């Protein structure tokens, strides 16, 4: 393959920049932490895939050919624009998701990271994760991503059963997945995550648990368990609707989830979030930012963000969504420097609702200190301390409210969505009573 000279030079420069950045970090002391409003996580969306997976309804496209240079330029431009708008001084993590970002060239990843490092402070120990698909990421390519600045891999392994992988429309086999996993562990020791799905049509508890055990023998320090949700518009959904496949059995999925989290616990993993398990402290700091309602910027088609734009004189955080369709998004980025399609100012109550719904997904839950940062005028005790319905949940042992804060018990975590149906209205009610003059959410 003939690499155009300019492109090769760009990549080399980026790689060197990444290396340089690391060296500087190693020599420099710990940076002074910036205030929360000046910190953010950065999500970068690569919208393309080789093939459509049968279960996936994310924002992704199967292109005939990707104009990667243009895409790269736009990702860089938008990252620069949003960093400037947000006034963020320190980026604590970068996550390349998709789509299939491992289909992008390492050069593109490097270019984005370089732009981020130039525009703001990106410490060398910042978590930089790339979602990798086993077939599109042979060892050599993974090494190139490492050279570009990636230091953590999330492998979409999904299953260790070839029949299931075919059902899911994946392009890889179980063997491919295990080979990629092994290569990733050599390159990124202690920083490799694998996704395993559960609750597939016709899947049974025993064999699935066998897969998990096999995975535990091979995996690194991070595992994510995801229950398949049938999404409208996917091939799998259609097949189930037509009766070509049995509908996934929620009862079995619940059993798999329970057996899975127990097996992971025995293997020394901490379930630090509903779907995420880590040992040796290998938590994903990027996702942690979501659950703690930290700021994050979303770059790329359809990416979501949550941050306070600077310079407008307001302190209001905005929920932002970028234009979905890649071509349109690129046009907008070229015209305006960004492809933000929707900006929704978030009210204080709305923020608290997210703090609640996201925070309870984690094992530490919501500490009093954490809550105070978002709702100084209303303590957790004020909101939930007197409710009869909440008391019932506490008595049932599903929920804990104590000196540390509010969190789910081991039994409560799997039914969090049901708990939230009691907790959210309770929060709304307390908020209205406390601030009667304010419009809800205002």
């Amino acid at each position: 393959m003939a690499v155009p000279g300019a492109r090769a030079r760009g990549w080399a420069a980026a790689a060197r920049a990444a290396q340089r950045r690391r060296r500087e970090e190693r020599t420099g002391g710990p940076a002074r932490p910036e205030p929360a409003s000046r910190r953010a996580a950065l999500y970068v969306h690569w919208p393309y895939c080789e093939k459509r997976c049968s279960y996936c309804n994310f924002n992704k496209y199967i292109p005939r050919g990707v104009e990667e240079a243009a895409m790269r330029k736009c990702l860089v431009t938008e990252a620069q624009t949003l960093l400037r708008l947000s006034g963020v001084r320190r980026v604590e993590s970068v996550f390349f998701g998709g789509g299939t970002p491992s289909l992008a060239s390492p050069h593109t990843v490097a270019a984005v990271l370089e732009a981020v490092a130039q525009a703001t402070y990106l410490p060398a120990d910042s978590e930089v994760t790339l979602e990798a698909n086993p077939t599109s990421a042979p060892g050599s390519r993974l090494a190139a991503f490492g050279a570009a600045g990636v230091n953590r891999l999330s492998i979409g392994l999904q299953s260790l059963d070839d029949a299931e992988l075919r059902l899911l429309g994946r392009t890889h086999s179980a063997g491919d997945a295990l080979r990629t996993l092994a290569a990733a562990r050599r390159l990124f020791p202690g920083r490799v995550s694998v996704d395993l799905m559960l609750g597939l049509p016709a899947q049974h508890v025993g064999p699935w648990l066998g897969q998990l055990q096999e995975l535990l023998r091979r995996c690194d320090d991070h595992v994510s368990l995801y229950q398949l949700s049938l999404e409208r518009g996917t091939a799998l959904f259609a097949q189930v609707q037509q009766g070509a496949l049995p509908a996934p059995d929620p009862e079995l999925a619940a059993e798999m989830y329970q057996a899975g989290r127990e097996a992971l616990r025995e293997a020394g993993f901490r379930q630090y979030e509903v779907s995420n398990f880590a040992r040796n402290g290998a938590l994903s700091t990027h996702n942690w930012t979501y659950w703690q309602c930290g700021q994050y910027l979303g770059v790329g088609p359809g990416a979501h963000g949550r941050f306070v734009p600077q310079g407008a004189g307001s302190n209001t955080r905005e929920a932002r969504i970028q234009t979905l369709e890649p071509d349109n998004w690129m046009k907008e980025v070229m015209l305006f420097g960004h492809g933000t399609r929707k900006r929704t100012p978030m009210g204080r109550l709305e923020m608290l609702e997210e703090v609640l719904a996201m925070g309870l997904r984690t094992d530490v839950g919501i500490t009093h200190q954490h809550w105070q940062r978002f709702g100084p005028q209303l303590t957790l005790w004020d909101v939930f301390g007197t409710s009869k319905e909440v008391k019932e949940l506490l008595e049932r042992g599903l929920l804990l409210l104590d000196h540390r804060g509010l969190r789910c018990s081991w039994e409560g975590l799997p039914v969090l969505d049901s708990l939230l149906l009691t907790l959210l209205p309770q929060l709304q009610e307390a908020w209205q009573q406390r601030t009667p003059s304010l419009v809800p959410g205002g």
Partner: protein
Amino acid sequence: MWTVLGPGWGRGHALALWAARRRLPGPRPAPTREPAARRFSSADLKEKLDMSGFPVENTRNFSIIAHVDHGKSTLADRLLELTGTIDKTKNNKQVLDKLQVERERGITVKAQTASLFYNCEGKQYLLNLIDTPGHVDFSYEVSRSLSACQGVLLVVDANEGIQAQTVANFFLAFEAQLSVIPVINKIDLKNADPERVEKQIEKVFDIPSDECIKISAKLGTNVESVLQAVIERIPPPKVHRKNPLRALVFDSTFDQYRGVIANVALFDGVVSKGDKIVSAHTQKTYEVNEVGILNPNEQSTQKLYAGQVGYLIAGMKDVTEAQIGDTLYLHKQPVEPLPGFKSAKPMVFAGMYPIDQSEYNNLKSAIEKLTLNDSSVTVHRDSSLALGAGWRLGFLGLLHMEVFNQRLEQEYNASVILTTPTVPYKAVLSSAKLIKEYREKEITIINPAQFPDKSKVTEYLEPVVLGTIITPDEYTGKIMMLCQARRAVQKNMMFIDENRVMLKYLFPLNEIVVDFYDSLKSLSSGYASFDYEDAGYQTAELVKMDVLLNGNIVEELVTVVHKDKAHLVGKSICERLKDSLPRQLFEIAIQAAIGNKIIARETVKPYRKNVLAKCYGGDITRKMKLLKRQAEGKKRLRKIGNIEVPKEAFIKVLKTQSDK
């Protein structure tokens, strides 16, 4: 959402049969009468028809009665053509069927009354064809219509032979002591077997076979001889023009501009515009604005005379002021009212609720408009903790209910929840206290919540009907099993020909109100026909059944059932609840109980996992929206103890369903 009986009762034909009965503001042909004719002037008067020239002996009043689809309207069309009432064109298809629904379905609901002028052997005859609604739900109204007649044409399909409704209609005419002229129709059909039908008629109705007239109404074959028979075999009405006015109201409709139009048959006397008349039922006095005949459109006349049939408009504002069966007489000249009047008596009750409470007012106005033409629907406001504000409606029968609902949906675009129909039970009270409270010894129970305890009751009563089933004999065994399962008692069984059987059973009404007809049709491949008539009340061992969720009674699900059916019904309710109650954080025990005795139980297991696995790419918004919507919905749920019950669960249990 229309939760009606399923494609049951009458399979559409019978349905529409009723629809037009209530004669809607449907597509009526433009009245031939000019608006100017309403204004009174002497010039107009002279132009009006003078009915005095039709003496009683040249008048015949008759009806056509038939099973659905046996050709009643087609025969009426031919009679109208033959008498020159309407032009003979190819377009005369069911001229009397004015409703769109009637023409679409090719059936008669209510052919309108028509006065035919017919010249026979030099004499001018006035033949009044008085239509009847063709279904037993309206047997009272049929009997009132028939009481204005002296004879009927009993039309039977030459191919299908006697059907259940033929029998029911025949006996109504027979009891009214009318002359019955059997007419075997559709003799042009390939499979027609008029001789077989003749024999059936002889066997079942005891009418000599040579009295049957064999015709093809479609082709006009032999129709003239029907008119001859009407003149020869039906006697003129026995009335007296000299006596004071005595008029029977046998139908009434509501016109937006003119008020109530009452169809009347004069038994005695004369009526003309300007007369002051009194309703024997309400004792209200009215001034007659207009009288006339129907041919078939309203045509005003100077007067109507004894023996004649026509219409009358007298400033009545509401159809309840002109109830069917009522007698009208002249002010200050009271007469003995005609016998047999009774107010409409609902036999089937059902709750009706808007799907969404915001639709309440729209639904209310739709119901009001529909009942404007149908005084036989009783409407009581009702409210359910689960379903909100609504009504408890009483209908004459199942068909009546189904048609009412269908029309609400079709004509008013109203979506409603209709609860499983119930029948009016009775209790004979023994408790002096209760008797004092109710001011009577025998009370009717419409709402199960009012069901008095056994200790305060001598006996409970349930309504029963006499059902007629006609079927090819190969299905007899299966049908007898079905009837037995419905607690029916066989009263009679006879072969009406070599391979057709007529069965008579006494049914508890509540056993046939839901899905009996569907079951009968499906196990007889559609060949069996069914009809029933009111047969009063019988003693029944009734019990009140509660439904409990974790020990708490669900008020809206209290049911009155027969002791023998309690287990079956309880089990079915528990199963339906189990299927529709969403899982909660704890186990739910669903129980059906009679007093303290649990007769059925189901369990809903608690949630084991209910948390969305992945919030992808920071898309929290969607997740939050979903959660908030669910939380919002949860607020509206009815709580039984600490169990949240969605409206859908109640609907699923309460609504009418054919797959019981």
